[in-house]
């Protein structure tokens, strides 16, 4: 074979300047094209479904609200149909969409580093001039931003789709299954799930176990969040008896954290009164009337700690905020593993 020669060696010996960060844009795109195309494609396809189904739902809801008189048989049928047909779609969609962050974490996040470790290509990637920590930081940041942005955009489509159900199906904006599909929270959950996925990929070094761990941990975290959400430090306390306590809930209902009663002069209500109230709330025939009666009878004050509807966006930002902090910490741990785990 003929012999190819290299041009003369450039001057050596000085400390090399680093390979520019922007080079990782092409690298990330080329290596994760499948993820970067399929995540928007799948969410885009679901969006098209939501748009088509949403148009019908919005139309049905408009017809229903325009129906007069509301007590007529025609309106009753419309109402029943909406609650039966449209709400079945809406309810199913809102439940299934909770899988989106988990699936992004498992299928887009977990393989990013686990595949390199499984196939041995990390021996190539981590010995290039770019440096392995910078390589990991650049790649994870770009992918995280991409999936988070796509998830946020998708959430806006869902928000529009779901609008009619809030007043019609007694859903509060704070209903757990609805709250975490709204834009800031949903973006936060997607980001956190992705970060958890890449972390387990690096920790376990195998794609399938990493996917399983991601799904498990994400599920645990999401369920735990349902319990702690009411305790975000955004609650106010009121003695206004018209707020809180008894359902049904509606779109403008606040998220009630707790309710308690004090007797005359601010003393705590007696134990017997508390148990009476408790039995009314649990099995009373007409709870609101009975409650009003017992409050008047014992000169009680009803205190409610609640999160007003006006604090919906602060609540969203708070949830998005802690999820962002969590994701950054988990990614930092991942980069630490990339740097320190012996290959």
């Amino acid at each position, binding site marked *: 074979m003929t012999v190819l020669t290299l*041009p003369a060696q450039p001057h050596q010996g000085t400390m090399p300047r680093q*390979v520019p960060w922007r080079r990782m844009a*092409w690298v990330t795109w*080329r290596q994760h094209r499948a993820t970067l195309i399929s995540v928007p494609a799948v969410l885009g396809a679901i969006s098209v479904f939501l748009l088509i189904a949403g148009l019908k739902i919005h139309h049905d809801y408009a017809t229903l609200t325009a129906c007069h008189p509301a007590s007529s048989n025609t309106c009753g049928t419309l109402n029943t149909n909406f609650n039966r047909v449209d709400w079945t779609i809406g309810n199913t969609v809102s439940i299934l969409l909770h899988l989106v962050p988990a699936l992004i974490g498992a299928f887009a996040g977990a393989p990013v580093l686990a595949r390199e470790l499984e*196939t041995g290509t990390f021996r190539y990637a*981590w*010995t290039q001039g770019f*440096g392995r920590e910078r390589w990991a930081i650049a790649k994870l940041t770009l992918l995280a931003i991409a999936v988070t942005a796509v998830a946020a955009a998708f959430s806006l489509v869902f928000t529009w789709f779901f609008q009619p159900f809030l007043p019609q199906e007694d859903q509060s904006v704070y209903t757990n299954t609805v709250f975490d599909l709204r834009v800031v929270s949903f973006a936060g959950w997607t980001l956190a799930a992705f970060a958890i996925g890449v972390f387990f990929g690096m920790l376990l070094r195998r794609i399938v176990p990493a996917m399983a761990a991601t799904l498990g941990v994400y599920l645990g975290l999401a369920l735990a969040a349902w319990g702690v959400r009411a305790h975000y430090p955004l609650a106010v306390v009121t003695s206004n008896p018209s707020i809180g306590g008894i359902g049904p809930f509606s779109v403008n209902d606040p998220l009630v954290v707790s309710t308690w009663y004090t007797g005359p002069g601010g003393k705590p209500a007696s134990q017997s009164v508390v148990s009476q109230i408790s039995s009314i709330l649990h099995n009373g025939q007409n709870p609101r009337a009975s409650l009003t009666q017992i409050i008047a009878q014992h000169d009680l004050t009803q205190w409610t700690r609640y999160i007003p509807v006006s604090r919906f966006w602060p609540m969203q930002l708070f949830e998005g905020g802690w999820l962002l902090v969590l994701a950054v910490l988990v990614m930092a741990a991942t980069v630490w593993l990339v740097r320190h785990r012996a*290959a």
Partner: protein
Amino acid sequence: MNVIETNGLGKSYRHIWALHECTLAIPGGHLAALVGPNGAGKSTLMNMAAGLTVPTAGAVTVLGGQPAGSPAALDGIAFVAQDSPVYKNLSAGDMLHLTRNLNRRFEQRYAQDRLAELGIPLKKKAGKLSGGQQAQLALTLALARRPRLLILDEPLAALDPLARQDFLATVMTAMADDGVSVLLSSHALADLERVADYLVVLSGGAVRVDGEVDDLLASHRVLTGPAGTGQHVEHLSVVQAKRAGAQAHLLVRISGPADPVPPGWEAHPVSLEELTLAYLRAPGSTEPPGPPSVQNAEPTEMAR
């Protein structure tokens, strides 16, 4: 300048030493062969020099004192790991572009010309290339980075004899033209005998012998004499003793070519293969020093 320098270097996995107390100084400008059976610690040593693996004990520096894995080290070293890992779903052309993006220097022209020469189409997926072509692709990517040190871990294992020759010719050309130093590992010495001018023999996680090939050949000889007596040779440093019929063959280390031959013995120069095998078979440092045991010669993987 030493391209690789280790001092008491060790790596243990679950309390078992893969490499232990390894002290080496490989000078630049050589094609150094790292030879030893499978599991000798060759890959462990190379991974640590490439900055992939963190040592358990001791230290390793490269390119004249740079810590392994530091930016300067990564910039100046090209490492082709065992089985030449490439992204199987990327085309050869994409692998070129990828490597160019991940490094300060990359000779795109050289890389393209070389792949054309090898008949590797740029559009073909790396995973669809033959084992030999994948190895050549990985070598091309490494050389196009203009490294000062090229580390190749068992690059010949997957290649047929013709591809081995082509591969080594490429490496030799780069050495001659560009002054790149090379460290190449193999469990088959035969492939490297003609090309290596520096030898490190590794076995059981320890360095058995290392040095320039010419120096090693000059400082060892085979003595042939009557078996069983051991007369006049007690003072010699015997690496290995073999017995064939009534004759004993001793491979001894001497202080120089002027060393006198003991009376009754005949001296022969040693071949690189004999020397390597002798050190691989010699009792390890764990055994107490004593009179050399006489063994029967048998062919091993090393000899094949």
